[in-house]
């Protein structure tokens, strides 16, 4: 059999020419990978507890010396967790409870799928607004931790 045309990771994550939900899907996947990498790094970090008090303090000191890089990293992780969590709740409503999809109906031209309809759009825009607001708040909180912004 010939090779499948244009299949693979890039095509899977490319949402251009598609619907809003496809953009949401792409962002959900990317934030999921960021959180998975963070989890691995976090487990590696807390493993240093086994090195004793001195080893742990040294690890904490090295991490705090990262400064702005740590700040940006934490901010990206906070954004990923917020988006992945909020969008995950929407997906649970869709997939487990069958909500926001509309009832099956007789298709009438011009076709507009109800599962990508008004309810879904409202949910996605609401999630985006809440996540962006909380992400800005998280950024200010992190800057306050470094003493750049007064909290």
């Amino acid at each position, binding site marked *: *059999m010939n090779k*499948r045309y244009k299949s693979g990771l890039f*095509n899977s994550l490319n949402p251009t020419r*598609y*619907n809003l939900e496809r953009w949401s899907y*792409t962002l959900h996947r990317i934030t999921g990978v960021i959180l998975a990498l963070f989890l691995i790094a976090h487990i590696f970090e807390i493993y240093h507890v086994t090195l004793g008090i001195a080893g742990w303090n040294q690890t904490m000191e090295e991490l705090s010396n990262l400064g702005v890089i740590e700040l940006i990293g934490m901010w990206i992780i906070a954004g990923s967790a917020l988006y992945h969590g909020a969008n995950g709740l929407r997906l649970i409503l869709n*997939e487990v409870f069958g909500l926001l999809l509309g009832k099956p109906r007789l298709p009438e031209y011009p076709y507009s799928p109800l*599962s990508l309809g008004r309810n879904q759009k409202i949910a996605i825009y609401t999630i985006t607004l809440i996540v962006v607001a909380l992400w800005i708040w998280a950024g200010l909180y992190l800057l306050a931790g470094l003493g750049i912004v007064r909290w």
Partner: protein
Amino acid sequence: MTRVRILRNDGSKQWWQEYDVEPRKGSTVLDLLLNIRETHDHTLAFRHSCQMGSCGSCGMVINGKPSLACQTRIADLKSEPLFNDTIRIEPLYSYPVIKDLVVDLDDFVNKHKSIKPYIIRKNPEELEEAPMEFRVTPAENLNFIQFDYCIMCGLCVAACPTVSLDPQFTGPQALAQAYRYIADPRDEGFNERQSILDTSHGVWRCHFAGSCSYVCPKGVDPAKAIQLLKREILKRKFVRGKAGASVAVVVQPEKSISNAPKAPPLDFKMEADQHE
């Protein structure tokens, strides 16, 4: 004059080929392709049949979006904001290419077959000799008729990001058809289909990107069918506690209608001269 860029493929190599054609008012992409084959290049291969969006043969990727060539008007493409005077045509994504725009649909059809797209009864003899009339009320019919409109064009599979990553994924078309039969009150085949659907390459691989519904030319909305299928599987596994019950209440005509018509025997023959 409109420039058409087509991704050609002879089975061993692929290349982009450009044609300049003059579309007539109201022309579709399929009209342009037929024009190219008649006047420019008779070696260009593509499938088409009904030319009215009913057969699903002319599926291809037009300017990055899986579409039916016969349903895509040139004027609509030109009115798109990012249109740059070139129509780019490729074979459907995630399918093996046989030649030019003709793709291999074997895997697609096999997946459709795998979900048993027909009415299943616990007693198979009922399909040969129906003991009663199996009724579907208009309200019950609305639960699945939308998914019955599928013309198997394969656009949903080309648009699906999960198919792109996982070739073993059952795919939106087959899953939507599985729900169509599971939601049918005449069907009793949930248990038979569950071994195919309730797997890591089955319904749970779908992450609801919705692209299948977005590109569907018949308003079938496979994404909705798949999410409802997930809900149905969870409900039967955890809420009802046992699998095999129907989605809708099955009307038992032999109980509700005392004089329900019986199906004719298998050896029944119409006698041509009966009324002479």
